[in-house]
């Protein structure tokens, strides 16, 4: 394809992103260091107080955990769907899509119903005589993780699935014909070929997690605050410049982590291609 044609293909995206992302973001980048004169006080505040460093570290940790959990849980699910006959696949994908279409607000509220003190789990525990006092499950890190994984899992499954459907099954058949066992064919042929899409899903889930605020806000305690919650909060407090500084930090952390994840992914891919797992 000619160079000019490629440029034309990029044009609409460029316009859209410049108008609705780059220009507005630039304004806010500026706000993080001009208040109204040039100052680095907001960044200094972020670095000098351990509470903010804790929040940053927690955001990365939670997002990584969610992304890895979604990948570990989601990959076999996508694989299972792929093994089904075509018609069946569509049906099963429906099951994955339905929860995805529900508002995140609603799905989060459902967890309140499930995990509350008078909630479903506690009621069942009491009925079975396993607990006399209701357990505190809501407003804990566990609740945030369970809900975030549940909310983001369909995205990882769909991305894995999309990558797997592109795999030419003749390759696996060929491997089988050449004497590979099913397990070998999987590890040597199927897994490497699906790795790229799986990593894409992992990165998407990671990125989305980094920006989550509804779920930690509704299901977490004060110890589960993430950067996006802080930003939301500071914006509500009208501390624009501090919020802007937090946003810049979130951006830098996320991009840095993605580069790291991609790099790690490439290393992994090379190892897998060389010698299997």
């Amino acid at each position, binding site marked *: 394809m000619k160079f000019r044609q490629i440029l034309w293909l990029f044009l609409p995206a460029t316009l859209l992103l410049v108008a609705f992302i780059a220009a507005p973001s630039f304004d806010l980048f500026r706000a993080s260091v001009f208040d109204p004169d040039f100052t680095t006080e907001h960044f200094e505040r972020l670095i000098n107080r351990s509470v903010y460093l804790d929040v940053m570290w927690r955001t990365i940790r939670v997002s990584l955990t969610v992304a890895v959990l979604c990948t570990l849980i989601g990959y076999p699910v996508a694989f299972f769907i792929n093994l089904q006959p075509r018609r069946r696949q569509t049906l099963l994908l429906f099951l994955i899509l339905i929860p995805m279409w529900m*508002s995140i607000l609603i799905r989060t509220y459902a967890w309140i119903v499930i995990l509350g003190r008078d909630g479903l789990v506690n009621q069942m525990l009491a009925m079975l005589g396993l607990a006399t006092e209701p357990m505190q499950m809501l407003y804990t890190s566990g609740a945030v993780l369970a809900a975030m994984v549940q909310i983001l899992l369909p995205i990882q499954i769909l991305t894995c699935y999309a990558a797997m459907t592109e795999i030419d099954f003749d390759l696996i058949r060929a491997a089988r014909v050449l004497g590979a066992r099913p397990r070998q064919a999987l590890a040597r042929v199927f897994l490497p070929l699906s790795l790229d899409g799986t990593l894409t899903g992992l990165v998407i889930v990671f990125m989305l997690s980094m920006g989550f605020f509804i779920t930690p806000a509704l299901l977490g305690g004060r110890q589960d605050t993430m950067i996006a919650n802080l930003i939301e909060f500071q914006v509500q407090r009208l501390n624009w410049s501090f919020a802007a500084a937090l946003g810049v930090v979130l951006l830098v952390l996320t991009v840095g982590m993605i580069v790291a994840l991609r790099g790690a992914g490439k290393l992994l891919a090379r190892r897998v291609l060389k010698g299997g797992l």
Partner: protein
Amino acid sequence: MHIMKPSLLLTGYFWLIVAYMIFPALIVIPVSFSSSEFLRFPPEDFGLRWYGVYFTDPVWIAATVTSFRVAVLSTVIATTVGTMTGLAIIRSPTHAQAPLTYATTIPIVIPHIFIALGVFILALRLDLTDNEVALAFAHAAVAMPFVVLITSAAIRQIDPTIERAARVLGAGPFRAFRVATLPPLLPAMVAAAIFAFFVSFDELIIAQFLMKGSETLPMRIWADLRLDISPVVAAVSGLLIVVTTVALACAEILRRRAISTLAP
């Protein structure tokens, strides 16, 4: 297609995970049939009270219609622009692909509240506040990177030599694309479009800043949850589950038809 049969263990695992994903959806349904003032489980009295509220309240209906309109327009924009971009990335020189992917997908990492603030200022300058089209474009800008990621992953698997062959055989660039690249790309595009729709339909913060007079559905839900928590929210999600299941079924049927007519 059968290369191996899934083991019993894998089958059981699959249904366990499906239950984990869907269970919260199911729990919302009995709550929606409660006639109590508060969200409570299990509901004490059953009735259609909150469905009645939803259907007779012009505010809820208007919010639903607005959200739908915005999401459809936004999906069209995001899918078109995103697929073009995905195509452009994969057809670029190899060493340029990674930086181009970063450049076009970086918006994902920008918190929505930031985009919301920025776009709000922009919209004020251009007198576009309370404008659904502006909101749809903003949503499209947010959703497009996902479309790029999903479609470019798919395009990478498609053999470009087929399209080149079509060109050599005399097809124009568009026709070559339509015949050689589009059909295998379509499932990824549909997945991307569904995703884009979901991004817009569920997006709260940008809408809240940009829309003044009219409300979108998430704005309505958020307002309800914050100020007036009532099971009408559960009724809305109950309805959404039914409607989307039907809509997805229709979309799937259409997609299959499209593929069978396009196939050479």
